[in-house]
């Protein structure tokens, strides 16, 4: 039972973090707060992968020549780390585009509050 807990509790914290991120994205009205939630959400998934790469008693995946023959149990799984390097870059790129959109929106409407933004848009629709 305790073994099972130790083998899984990290994932549960990751999912709680994920829920916090989703909360920021869905409930908050300010667009920048939504972006903060989005970043938390993405980081939680990165943590999920990195947590899964762990092996007890293993070291970083850089070959140690002094160890002689290669023992896969002595190095943590390198694949999730590689995938997450890519995912981090994707996250940065998305954040950059999102900030560009936020700046464009602020320049046009002078507000970042979603409810007021929708009001402005409805007004524009009526005037057309």
């Amino acid at each position, binding site marked *: 039972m305790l073994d099972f807990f130790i083998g899984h509790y990290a994932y549960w914290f990751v999912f709680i973090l994920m829920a916090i991120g989703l909360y920021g994205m869905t409930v908050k009205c300010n667009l920048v707060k939504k972006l903060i939630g989005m970043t938390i959400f993405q980081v939680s998934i990165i943590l999920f992968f990195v947590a899964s790469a762990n092996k007890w008693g293993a070291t970083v995946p850089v070959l140690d020549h002094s160890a002689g023959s290669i023992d896969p149990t002595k190095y943590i799984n390198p*694949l999730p780390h590689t995938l997450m390097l890519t995912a981090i870059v994707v996250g940065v790129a998305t954040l950059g585009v999102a900030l560009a959109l936020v700046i464009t929106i602020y320049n046009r409407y002078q507000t970042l509050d979603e409810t007021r933004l929708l009001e402005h848009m409805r007004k524009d629709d009526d005037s057309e």
Partner: protein
Amino acid sequence: MILSNSPALAPLSLLLAAIVIPMVAFRRRWLAFPIALCASAFATGISVVNLVRVLSEGVIHYHFGGWIPPIGIEYVLDPLSAFVTLVVNAVSLLVLVHAHRSVAAELPDRSMPYYAVVMLMLTGFNGIILTGDFFNLYVFLEISSLALYGMIAVGNKKSPVAAFRYLIMGTVGGSFYLLGVGFVYMTTGSLNMADIAKIAPTLYHQPALVAALGLMVVGLGIKMAIFPLHGWLPDAYTYAPSASSALIAPVGAKVGVYAIIRVIFYVFGVDFVRHSLPLTDILAWLGAIAIVYGSVLAIAQKEMKRMLAYSSVAQIGYIGLGIGLANPYGIIGAVLHVMNHALMKACLFLVAGNFRLKLGHSTIPRLDHRVRKRMPWTTAAFTVGALSMVGVPPTVGFFSKWYLALGTIQNGRWLFLAALLVSSLLNAVYFFRVLEKVYMKPLEGDVPDDGDTALAEAPGSMLIPTLVLGIALLLLGLFNAVIVTGIITRIVPPGM
């Protein structure tokens, strides 16, 4: 050399164009369009070659860097992926030809980055379709979605808000998909689709794998706007520049549909889905609801692009219904409808673009029969597209509905059959509303019939793609038996 590398060449040529455009066309902007057009034409040619090769040689695997699959990344060229790449590349080539004038009119000073971003979107789509690796699919999904956010955001005043909402939704979708990949990787230890297809049947009722399937389908569903997750779609299509909506609407959602077909039927397999999660039933019900919901809302719209956007929701419902039926007729209908809807939507959006260029608007109540007199060819193309959407026999639209109807009858789902029939009526209502304005409505007031010389047929670069699509709708309808027996029957996945 070209032949041995042909599976990878379509996305790579598009990517090369996207890299070269910012370097070459930074100061000489007029170069951007020819480069983009050449790359798109080359990709279309390569897709034709690939389809012919697949039909004669069988499935082709392409290993990047020479590494064998679970170690490296592979591209898989089977009849389904070859067919869908050809549809995507050919339709976008036609739309790109059409887009030149409307980009010059709507985005005069941003044409260089715009064409580069269009090339990146097509790279992403080709990559998603061809890849045989789950993580590679995620990377290309993100390339195409980032490009889509950008293409939507350069429209009118409201477009950045629409793009931002799509960005938030799309990121949730992409992250769900990535989480699903994580679950799959941790339970099976592999990222290669063919490898997982072998391992998954040994893991029925493994909650992590079931969750992975659910997360992947929901994630892709958000990206492709399956019915309850379609919230971002109408605004995005309406506020985007007309070149963007004509490029995104026909092919964007189809790529998501393709990915869902691939994940459900080729990776996890029908048996896994039947044993673990009532996913196909859910998809079928959502599809049926989407068909009716989208059609009803389309009737209520005044703006033509928004009407077409809601009609897209309905049409994606047809495809979802076909997938959800999970029998051979359903799959044939769904894949055929992928092609049909790409052609029909492209045709109709091009017509909307022509109206926008010549009339300055595409609002339905303001159309009148002057349009038919001055723009006869555009009106003819619209008529063919509308008839095809309704499903009148000689056009392609009839045949996919026919196969879907056969599928519902085979499964004995009469309610879904009813949804199909009702939606055909609703389609007729909202398209005949436009046709009635164009053909019947007399001029308002005493405006002299030939006083307005500005109103004329669209220029050749816009008219020809529209007409080609209109003729293709008729021809492919007449020869659809060839496509179905030659290509699509070979797509029906194993286990059905």
